[in-house]
């Protein structure tokens, strides 16, 4: 049975999550992908801080399709998290506590997850229509000029995900794939 979780997550809630757990995420999350990450880190390095308060927050690696009239958002599935690996340790060291995306992460990211008691969730890649049904509000909060790559504040209800890397560094991709390897 999936575990219902509310974001932002407390440290205790993160400690209870184990790689492989199915979860349903509710609460407020922020989208950011390639271009937004580059800008956020640039802004931090210039001493200007981040455009949003990332403390204890969850970043969803996603760039949605435009919303049709009357809809909250268009298709909105996860993008490959690995492209953000270069920027992720800095964000985690500055308060970010959770990420939602797809695909494997570098050792540096896993180490940053462990030292900051953070968690990496996986959403179903290529299931953007299904995930859009879980988004009840969407609003651009930074970098509007980036279009689909802008930072959006999303309110989500029961968004289905799986714990990919837990705060102890256990990685579902490694354990899951080892279990079914036949060579």
């Amino acid at each position, binding site marked *: 049975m999936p575990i219902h979780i509310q974001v932002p997550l407390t440290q205790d809630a993160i400690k209870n999550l184990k790689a*492989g757990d199915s979860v349903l995420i509710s609460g407020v999350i922020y989208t950011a992908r390639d*271009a937004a990450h580059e800008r956020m880190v640039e802004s931090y390095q210039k001493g200007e801080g981040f455009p949003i308060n990332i403390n204890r927050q969850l970043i969803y690696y*996603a*760039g*949605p*399709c*435009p*919303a*049709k009239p009357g809809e909250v958002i*268009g*298709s*909105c*599935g996860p*993008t*490959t998290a*690995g492209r953000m690996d270069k920027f992720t340790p800095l964000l985690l060291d500055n308060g970010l506590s959770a990420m939602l995306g*797809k*695909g*494997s992460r570098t050792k540096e990211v896993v180490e940053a997850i462990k030292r900051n008691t953070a968690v990496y969730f*996986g959403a*179903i*890649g*290529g*299931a*953007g*229509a*299904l995930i*859009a*049904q879980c988004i009840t509000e969407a609003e651009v909060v930074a970098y509007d000029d*980036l*279009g*689909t*790559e802008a930072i959006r504040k999303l309110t989500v209800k029961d968004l*289905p995900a*799986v714990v990919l890397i837990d705060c102890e560094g256990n990685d*579902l*991709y490694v*354990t*899951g*794939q*080892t*279990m*079914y*390897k*036949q*060579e």
Partner: protein
Amino acid sequence: MRIITSQTITDSVEKMCVLANCHMNEDIRKALADSVKTEKSPVGRELLQNVLKNADIAAEKTMPICQDTGIAVFFVEIGQEVYVEGDTLTEAINKGVASGYKNGYLRKSVVLDPIKRVNTNDNTPAIIYYDIVKGDKLKITFAPKGFGSENKSALKMLNPADGVDGVMDFVVETVKKAGSNPCPPMVVGVGIGGTMDKAAVLSKKALVRNIDKRNSDSFYADLENALLHRINKLGIGPQGMGGTTTALAVNIETFPTHIAGLPVAVNISCHVTRHTDIEI
């Protein structure tokens, strides 16, 4: 000579943009439904079911199956008796892409320059490959290609002596490296022969062949099956979370090549692998 107005082409392309992005092809749907029955991982089975549920929602709401509605790739066969009146054929296709992506609420994912990276905001320009054929028909195949999987593609110039074993090892190695990133179960397009660039185009073209059709040459049909068998033993599974369904199909296309070479390109695609075509 047969006259086709450029507006007819633009209108057809606009419709294809929405169709390909919002409606999963039957061959893919069937392969996914079949894999629910054979997948050994319970988590994997659940993921495959959700992927099918996602396709149902997309079709019902005319919503993109995946938010990465891709860069627009076209394979065009133009009969040499066809005359396009109005815009050039390339302009007509690009206009169709621009209106299809705008009016269809599809994501615009193209940047004008690979380094400077400013979005063109209408998903053009399209990538178009032309073949001039006999007759007075125009066949347009549209394949929106997402980059989660495109980024995991690879090309290698093998030596002739590497032979079929070298080809197999390179394909399997590329899939292994792709791992969880390209939204498995994947469809694997393989181009063998030609030149470096020809092999790459063939590997893309392989992805627009329905996955329930094997290569017409039995040697390559067997190779497709043997590769699929090896790939599905890798353990990657649905979404890379472990399982026995890593790929739905391997499609191979070939071309004559030079006595000194054996180019092999592997174009990785996801569990949606979209394409549609029209004949005007």
